[in-house]
Each structure stands twice: as C-alpha cells, then as structure tokens.
C-alpha cells in the first residue's frame, strides 16, 4: 500500500511543478506609419489638401500610444503591463515609430486595442509617472498643468489652398477632470494578428482623416486648438479614427 502511495506521491512531485499551461511568449514589434494618400508624410516639404479646400504642411507630429492590449477570438484579453505600455511616436524620429513589446503570448489575436494619450485613472499612478521624462524631453508634457499632451500637430496652412503660410497647431490634452480627451482605438483585420506566423504588426495612421473623419475641420476657423472644450474633443475624435492595420511591409 505504502509503495502505491509512494508511487503516486512521486508522480505528483514529478508533475506538480510543471506549469501545465505554459504558453509560449514572444517579442513583437508594432510599427506606426503616418501617411497621407498612402504615402509617408513629408515633414515641412509636403503640401496636402483637406476636403474643405484648404492646404497644409506638417512641421511636427507626435502622439502618445498607451495601454496596449490584445483580444482573442473568444474575447479574452491580454493586457500588456500598464507601466511598460506608454510610448511616444514622433514622426521625426524613425525609431520611435517602431514599438517593441516583450512576453506576448503567441496566439492568433483577433484585435489589438490601444489608447491615444494617458487615461486619467492611470495618471499619475501605476508607474505612469515614469513616462514623464520621455514626454517632457519631447515637449509632450505641459508644465503648468502637470499633464501630458496626447496628440500634437503643428504646421502651416492656407485657407485658399495655396502655398501654406499661416501657422496652425493642435495640442490635444484632457481639461482637468471636466473633459477627458483620452481615446481608445480597437483594430481588427481580416488577416488577424497571428503571432504564430508573424511577430510584426503594422499600423497606419491616415492623417488626412484628421480633418474629416467624424468632424469636418476648417483650419482657418480655429488654427490654434489647445484647451478648447468645443474643438479639442472634435480633433480627439478624428484622431481616434486615423488608424488601421495593414499587412506588414517594411515601409520605412
């Protein structure tokens, strides 16, 4: 009898420390390509048209990507550790447009979800404070309000569609607790995000939609949008519609 129990115990010992559900994990990269008319945007030199007939050029384009999570077919969510989940995409810095994530369970995900900006429930908690120096160095943090700038575009425009020569700037932030301009984006794709096949996820931002995705924006109406409870939410809403996932190709 004891021998049997002994055998059972030894067997238990043998299996008890094996993590039955060990899921393979992997490092992946998510690339962000900022485009207009399917072409990478050209800072300073490119001149683009809005559907309302204005022309514009872009001198600066930056945004914060945050709170990345992956959603399986069955709705299960893998949330990337919040404290490591804040990234600053700067059009001028090629390396900033490729986000590296580690230890992602290798699964064929149906959707990917991320935030633009910093959600109020996390700031300044959950180590999100530690993103301050990064944001500060890229001037994506407002000193006077101790708050992050979620999305920033600066450039020149012409209301008549000629060579742009008037300044415009949109700095989108949350306005205290009154108005939260943090947005989330959920992307699905026909081909899925199959990490068993591919370790790269390619996301495009179509900047032309900034001016017409949900709200038509005439730059001349308000070329300086910062703390603006009427216009900032419209820009934020349009920003949330810029992104789509595309089959990976090395576009940079």
């Amino acid at each position, binding site marked *: 009898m004891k021998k049997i129990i002994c055998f059972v115990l030894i067997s238990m010992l043998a299996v008890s420390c094996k993590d039955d559900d060990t899921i393979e994990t992997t490092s992946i990269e998510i690339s962000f390509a900022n485009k207009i008319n399917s072409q990478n945007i050209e800072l300073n030199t490119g001149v683009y048209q809005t559907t309302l007939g204005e022309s514009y050029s872009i001198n600066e384009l930056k945004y914060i990507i945050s709170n990345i999570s992956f959603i399986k077919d069955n709705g299960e969510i893998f949330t990337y550790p919040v404290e490591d989940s804040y990234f600053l995409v700067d059009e001028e810095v090629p390396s900033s447009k490729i986000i590296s994530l580690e230890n992602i369970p290798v699964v064929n995900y149906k959707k990917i979800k991320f935030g633009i900006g910093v959600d109020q429930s996390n700031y300044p908690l959950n180590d999100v404070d530690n993103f301050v120096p990064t944001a500060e160095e890229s001037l994506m943090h407002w000193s006077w309000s101790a708050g992050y700038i979620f999305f920033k575009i600066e450039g020149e425009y012409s209301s008549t569609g000629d060579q742009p020569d008037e300044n415009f700037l949109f700095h989108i932030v949350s*306005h205290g607790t009154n108005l939260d301009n943090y947005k989330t984006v959920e992307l699905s794709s026909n081909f899925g995000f199959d990490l068993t096949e591919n370790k790269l996820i390619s996301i495009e931002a179509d900047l032309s939609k900034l001016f017409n995705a949900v709200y038509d924006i005439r730059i001349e109406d308000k070329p300086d949008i910062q703390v603006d409870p009427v216009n900032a939410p419209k820009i934020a809403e349009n920003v949330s519609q810029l992104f789509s996932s595309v089959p990976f190709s090395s576009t940079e």
Partner: protein
Amino acid sequence: MNKVFLILVLIVCFACSGEENTYVEISENKKLDFPQPDFFPQPVYNLEENPPTEKGFELGKKLFYDGRLSSTGVISCGFCHVQEFSFTHHTHEVSHGVDGALGTRNAQPLMNLAYFEEFSWDGAAQHLDSFSIIPITTDTEMNETVSNVINKLKSDQVYSELFAEAFNNGEVNTQNMFRALSQFMVMMVSADTKYDKVLEGNSVFSEEESAGQSLFEAKCASCHKGILFTDQSYRNNGLSIDPRYNDIGRERVTGLEEDKYKFKVPTLRNIAVSLPYMHDGRFQSLKEVLDHYDSGVEPTQNLDPSLQQENNLGISLTETEKNQLISFLNTLTDDNFLLDRRFSEF
C-alpha cells in the same frame, strides 16, 4: 521507509510554494500612522497605494528642502513654502523663483493635503503626486526638468540609498520621487487649533470669538465650508482684474468662459499666518480681506452669486463685526503644527 514516505509528503507539500513569501517587509522602514483627526472626513489621497513610511517621509523631506530640484541649485520647495507661515511665502505677493524671477500667483499653504481633490489655485493638478511637476518645471519657479532632477538624484549616493530603503523596487525614478514628496506632504495634518479644542469640548471661545463664529457661519461658511473651511469649489470673489497678470483663473484649465476669473476657495486653517491673501497676494492683512468683501467687490464676469444679492455687491460688515470675525479666524491657528519639528528644515 516511513521516513522516506514522510519526506516525500513534505516535499510535495512545499514543492510549489516557491512563489509565496516573496514580499519581505524591510524591517527598518516602519509604516507611519496617518494622524486622522476625529472630525475630519476620510482622506481623498489613497494611503494604501502610497503608505507613508519612515524612510519615504525622510526622503520626501530631504527632497522638499533640496535646492537641487531647481535649475540654479538653490530654490527648494521649502523656499516658497515656509513652515512657520503655514508653508507659504511670507510677505511675498507672488512666488519668487530662480534668479529672482517672479511668478503670477501666491504660494498656497501646505497642510491637510490628503483631503484635497485638486491642487493649485485653478485646480490644474488632479493628484498630489503630479502637482510638484508644476513648481519644478515652471520657468519662474524652479525652472528645471523632471529628467534633470532624476539624473541629479541618481548620481547622488545618499539619495540612491534613501530610495533603496524607502521603496520596494528601490529605484530612483519619477514615481518614487513624487511618492516620497507626497508621503512627506500628506503627513502635514493640521487640526490642533483652539477651534478644534472647542469642538472637542476642551476649550471655550471668548465672547468676541463666539460672536465671530456666528457671523462666520452666517456670512462666510457657504463657501468656506466644513471642517476644512473650503468647499473646494472655484469661484470669482469679485477682485478687480490686475492688468499685470490678467489671470483668467480656472478657465485656463477647462477652457470654459464660465470659469473665467474663478479660483479655488482656499482653506482658512492657519489663515492668520499665511498672509498675504488672495491668488495674487494683493491683501496684506485679514482686515484688508474683510474690507474687500464689505466694500471692494467688483461685478466682474462670473462674479459668484453669493456676492451679489438684491443688487448689493459683497457682504456688508460693520467694523465691530470685522474685528469679531478676525478674532474667530485667529482661533484657526495651529501653533503645534507650525512648529512641528518633523516638518522643519533644520
């Protein structure tokens, strides 16, 4: 055989327990008791998320009084927040920063911060942990970057050791720096005034103080409400607009025209020592403040409705009433707090 059996059972029992007990309390770093006063509401600040500890408090205090948090190395938090004056910049209308630069607003007192929902005169900061970014990075205050401060702290042996002792992950980083400052500041609880002693039944008001209290309840307490003497709202109290600053107040944060010229209703605890008064420090005495409410209120945009009733601007007060009110306000001074060595620089 029996022994082998027993050992096997034990091994199985313990084999998988390796994940437990990873939390080891650092014995030297004791948790501090938060001094919750009986009559106060529950703290807004989440003390479980960032529990004040002996080492965290010590680190926070060192940071608070360290000029290296500024670009010139000499302007510390404590430069404008002087303890004896309820952590305000005594006699300075607006705060003074690096190289004699002048700000646009009066340094606010620091006390009972654990009970406040938003910070600064316009509520720009919504969390105590992020508030300090404002003075550290403002060009007319400490004029430094958070990154530079972190780098300075990292290169300092004493700080590295303090951070290691104060926090579980031991890292010199932004979050730990701000958490340490918050630990120091949330412990600044001031609730040991004559007013509090009267509430507890351990003291009595003089006749004049008592008359002042009745007046206060009738004419001031709708805004300077409750045990903290503020309802934490933003209001325009009818100050004339100073063209030097043209400070739009709360509108800067919300972008709403209806918030123009509104400022946070300040607490009145330790008010007798925290002069000068108002967001721009324009009044030097409580008498001047009461004169303003009596006869100086101007009908600027968004003037608070409580200050314009039946075509009368302000709150009418006789000279006797003003003296009675001042006597009452003097009972809100907490000498034990103002002299508490735990918070003092030296």
